């Protein structure tokens, strides 16, 4: 069964334009809208519904749901499918994300476009499978070994599960790199109203295929047809010579395991292809920051009680604003530094013991006070708990 992205069929399978659906299901919708045709899945709470949704819907748009033997298999199959020419994704939660780490790095090193949805639950280890957390934010950034640049979204609503999964595909294709959608158990298992975007409003980025003369093609270097550090993609079977390896490789893709210069050139290119665009990649929502003296910097589910706390504060005359990170990685360094110069205090609520607060501190760089507002154990912050931080605790 040949897959081609068929907008009409996709609309037919997804159904009504306005729906009331689960966050996990919204990730399915986002993937299918983006043209995902392969899903490598493995059951894990609270992300199983993504696999189940894909198992039901993907075959109906002529895609393939493949249930793997574990999460190592899931991410590996997803990488294989990408090289075979598909847009591919998987979904998991903490323990599965940990198992994926080696191949996450493999996807980085081989410049493989793919999407990993992580519906975060509490950890370490098995933790609280049914309860949400944001404890893997640093893992997305640092979890696999070696130097790399991560791209990771943090949806705060079910609608954003659709939008960000779709956008994750765009960035994965644009930069030829794995992109994470760092949802959390709260959003993944939340039901909300969503609007399925119209076809005309979709901005889909497709991977740039290798098109030049096959003899002149160099697989792992700056694009030979565009001005970009992202090489053109030589899909398996299109006749372009490809040798894909996680070993350090030279421009031609051949192992160069004892060459310092080749390693430095390669890793600097695959990190700078993303970091060069860091300013363009900024995705934040700013609320009430114009006159703010205090600001919440937050993301994901936690942004919701933080917004309520902000409203409580505003009613009491406290000049409080909120900066929400839609894209957590690359980190919006300049935005944070600018904010630090404008406010007296930044409060960082997170459902972990303090992770994103660290880069916040780094880029605040002493310009204002930074307070961590952690909460763990699978319960979200209550607005009044966060309000107490506004009163100086």
């Amino acid at each position: 069964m040949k897959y081609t992205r068929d907008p009409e069929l996709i609309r037919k399978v997804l159904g009504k334009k306005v729906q009331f659906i689960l966050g996990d299901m919204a990730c399915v919708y986002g993937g299918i809208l983006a043209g995902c045709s392969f899903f490598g899945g493995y059951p894990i709470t609270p992300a199983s519904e993504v696999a189940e949704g894909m198992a039901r819907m993907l075959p109906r748009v002529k895609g393939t749901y493949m249930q793997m033997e574990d999460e190592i298999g899931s991410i590996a199959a997803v990488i294989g499918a990408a090289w075979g020419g598909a847009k591919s994704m998987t979904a998991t939660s903490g323990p599965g994300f940990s198992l994926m780490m080696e191949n996450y790095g493999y996807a980085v090193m081989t410049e493989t476009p793919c999407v990993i949805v992580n519906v975060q639950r509490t950890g370490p280890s098995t933790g609280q499978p049914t309860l949400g957390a944001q404890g893997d934010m640093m893992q997305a950034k640092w979890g696999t070994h070696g130097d790399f640049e991560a791209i990771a979204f943090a949806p705060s609503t079910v609608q954003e599960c659709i939008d960000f999964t779709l956008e994750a595909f765009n960035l994965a294709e644009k930069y030829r790199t794995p992109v994470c959608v760092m949802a959390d158990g709260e959003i993944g298992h939340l039901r909300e109203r969503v609007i399925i975007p119209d076809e005309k409003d979709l901005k889909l980025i497709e991977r740039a295929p290798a098109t030049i003369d096959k003899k002149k093609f160099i697989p792992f270097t700056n694009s030979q047809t565009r001005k970009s550090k992202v090489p053109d993609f030589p899909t398996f079977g299109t006749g372009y010579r490809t040798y894909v390896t996680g070993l350090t490789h030279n421009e031609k893709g051949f192992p160069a395991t004892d060459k310092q210069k080749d390693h430095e050139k390669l890793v600097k290119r695959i990190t700078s292809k993303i970091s060069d665009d860091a300013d363009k990649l900024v995705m934040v929502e700013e609320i009430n920051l114009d006159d703010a003296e205090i600001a919440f910097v937050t993301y994901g589910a936690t942004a919701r009680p933080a917004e309520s706390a902000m409203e409580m504060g505003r009613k009491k005359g406290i000049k409080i604003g909120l900066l929400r990170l839609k894209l957590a990685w690359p980190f919006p360094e300049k935005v944070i530094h600018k904010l630090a110069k404008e406010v007296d205090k930044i409060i960082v609520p997170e459902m972990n013991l303090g992770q994103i607060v660290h880069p916040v501190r780094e880029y605040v760089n002493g310009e204002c006070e930074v307070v961590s507002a952690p909460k763990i154990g699978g319960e979200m912050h209550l607005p009044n708990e966060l309000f107490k931080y506004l009163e100086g605790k």
Partner: protein
Amino acid sequence: MAIKDLPDTECVIPGSAACPGCPATLGLRLVFKALGKNSIMVVPACCTAVIESLYPNTSFDIPVMNIAFEAAAAGASGVEAALRQQGKGDTTVVAWAGDGGTYDIGIQALSGALERNTNFIYICYNNQIYSNTGIQRSGATPYAAWTTTTVGGKTEFRKEMGEIIQAHHIPYVAQACVAYPEDLYKKVKKAKSMKGPKYIEILAPCPPGWRFGMEKTVEMGTLAVETGAWALYEYENDKMSFNGKSKLILEGKIKRKPVEEWIKYQGRFGHLFKPEKDVKRIKEIEDHIYQMWERYRSCYL
């Protein structure tokens, strides 16, 4: 031995969160009647990890290590080695895992432990699905069965884990079923008496997973054996012997019931009967079982 002769020992004490009619709890009770309290258990992610440890208590009366999904046999290897170092080799180390944790994610660790000749018992309670995460397909799910990830019925046949284990040529491999408690008890008892790696797989009909009434757990187990969908056997030092009704089926002394007699009670096969009977797929299931028994006969009769 009769059921009334089973020891009173209970290592699984009341108060678990198991569903009514749960075969895992039934199997666990029987297993520990045979193993006794001088046992240490390693459990990966599976229903047992959750239902037997309901906050703030556990229903186990022995030490238990609830380990990562892929790691039961490897974790047990470490426990066994350390006990041996301390001269506590008489303690039984038992890994207890579901079919997902055995057939799929756990097979690497299991195969390694068997190859290293680890002195432990590995028990797979096989309910033919990932039940703990809400009924997804596993490598043990039979052909045509509905799960939440095989909505129209699974398109592949289950793998024969017992035969994969036999290829390791370990001292003892057995298949049992919760519907035959004396048989299960005897097999676990025998495994306990032997040195080296032992593998026992228990068919565990799961009411919510297979979609049958909670009062029918034992009946579903009995029918699985009587239809030949599941075989009771022992593979001891490379010698195969069949047990109970499976022995009679192998020897042709009784006729296997048609598989329809088993699957018609299970909602997971409901789509094979409604709106109209899917004769083709039912026959495919039947043929597969027939081929399995032909293979058994050619090898072991």
